[in-house]
């Protein structure tokens, strides 16, 4: 057996192709375009797919198809799958730390970030089958009805992950979306995309059905308008403070009355970066009126 070496007689490393993740498959962008991700030392880290609107369109179709069975699956099972994602992440910690260091983190920062991500997934795993009880209610009504309200997932969520952060922002945005039974398309950080693609590999080996999470790489400016005007998307999540873009998202989202969530003031590293209210942001409250007039148990003397 021979090893391929360079002129200094060192083994040539096999470099990973960073692909996008649509419908449980690692695909190249339909557009065939790519860009080079660099770090602050101007080192080339990888050729990364420059995703197009057609990639986004395909991802929405995948997310819509996946939504049905994901949203109706037992909440407990969703919890198990989120826990499994955390387990897989724990097992591949070294790779994530390595990628974070390449993208300008120090070793301590990188370790801290990956640990926080794992803990955050466990946190939302716990909430999967509990937030419904916290936010549901039985309502007093002046008619013979049993009236109750429960949260239900909205559907397909298009999210633009925090751009100044490689992994924690991405995980913090995805976890509450899927914990609540939604499916999503997430645009990773354009400047630090490595961990996003590797995180897709973690998702792929975690019993998460294909299409529930779709991860794209590319430029926010190019894709943001499609994220906000696609009629088959139910909500848009945006994490930057750029006012003009926020305004554009709000205007375009009005087309089909998408919910718009602006997370530019959230500190993802804090405890305030996780809460069941992030799950509730992407839930709709459904109220049911159930007639009880003729049920024996509803009358006195039962």
């Amino acid at each position, binding site marked *: 057996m021979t090893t391929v070496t360079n002129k200094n007689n060192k083994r040539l490393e096999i470099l990973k192709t960073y692909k996008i993740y649509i419908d449980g498959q690692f695909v190249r962008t339909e557009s065939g375009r790519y860009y080079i991700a660099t770090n602050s030392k101007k080192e080339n880290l990888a050729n990364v797919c420059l995703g197009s609107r057609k990639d986004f*369109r395909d991802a*929405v179709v995948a997310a819509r198809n996946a939504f049905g069975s994901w949203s109706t699956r037992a909440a407990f099972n969703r919890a198990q799958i989120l826990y499994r994602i955390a387990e897989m992440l724990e097992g591949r910690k070294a790779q994530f730390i390595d990628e974070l260091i390449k993208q300008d983190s120090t070793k301590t920062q990188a370790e801290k970030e990956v640990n926080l991500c794992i803990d955050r997934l466990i946190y939302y795993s716990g909430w999967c089958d509990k937030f419904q009880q916290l936010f549901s209610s039985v309502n007093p009504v002046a008619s013979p009805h049993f009236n109750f309200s429960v949260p239900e997932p909205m559907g397909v969520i298009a999210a633009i992950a925090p751009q100044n952060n490689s992994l924690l922002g991405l995980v913090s945005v995805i976890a509450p979306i899927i914990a609540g039974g939604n499916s999503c398309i997430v645009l990773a950080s354009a400047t630090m995309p490595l961990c996003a693609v590797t995180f897709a590999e973690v998702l792929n080996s975690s019993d998460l059905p294909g299409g529930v999470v779709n991860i794209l790489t590319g430029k926010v400016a190019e894709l943001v308008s*499609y994220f906000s*005007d*696609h*009629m*088959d998307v139910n909500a848009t999540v945006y994490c930057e403070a750029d006012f003009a873009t926020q305004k554009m998202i709000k205007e375009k989202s009005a*087309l*089909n009355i998408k919910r718009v969530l602006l997370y530019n003031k959230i500190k993802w590293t804090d405890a305030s970066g996780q809460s069941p209210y992030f799950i509730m942001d992407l839930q709709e409250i459904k109220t049911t009126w159930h007639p009880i007039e003729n049920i024996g148990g509803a009358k006195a003397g039962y």
Partner: protein
Amino acid sequence: MISTKIIPDFLLPPHIDQVGIEERSSRFTKRSIKNETKLNGLMLALNMIDLTTLEGKDTDGKVKQLCYKAIHLHDVYPGLPTVAAICVYPSMVKIAKKALEGSGVKVASVATAFPSGQATRDIKIRDTKYAVQHGADEVDMVISRGKFLQGEYNYVFDEIAAIKEACGKARLKVILETGELVTYDKVRKASDIAMYAGADFIKTSTGKISPAATMPITLVMLEAIRDFYYKTGKKIAMKPAGGIGKSKLALHYLVMLNETLGEDWMSNEWFRFGASSLANDILMQLMKQKTGIYQNANYFSID
């Protein structure tokens, strides 16, 4: 009626080049169709649809709703064509006919113990006559696949001829159910038998069996139509049915039609799509072309 002198001997095997057919049909999917061409193609495809409901659970209301849809495909988009026809069971013909009055949309009825075709000839003829008497403009019959596979080609031929006679003025579509014939050779042979026996259309499938219409199978049938035309001078129409649910695929079929039979066949008199979900997909594509915004199925009527 075609002179019996030119009817070929159906016992002789046809020779379909399987590799050639598959390669050729995959080529049609590689054409780039954009902008106005795409728009015109989509409009044409929409106008070629036989909007179909063939379920045991069909009700009067369901048929009326489908007829309404045939005329009002998507009223927020002005200038849309209607579909070509509504395709229903014989018991629903009367209701469909009434609902479509004056719209120009035709009523097609399946008949002859659809979808199995396992009934006596007498029953099949009565089934056909019932549909025609209630106003069906077109009759979609199924061939006796069992007899065909046993090699009783004369039985199949005579049956088609008898149904054609029962149709009167209604145009006859002959469903080969290619999913049960399996090979290209058998599809070609069945196409020839149907055309020589008097079919106005040849149609791939009932939609009840998988695989339904595929591009290679359709190409074999289109080539049979072409050869028949060269031999007899008579044009036969084509209807692929089942499994065509996306606009892009419909455009591929139109490319295949144009490059095999030519522009003379590019209208709903000579080509149909048997489909139910295709209409909404085309409408969503048309709205996308018009507005630049990707659409959501919830904003289109139920089909």
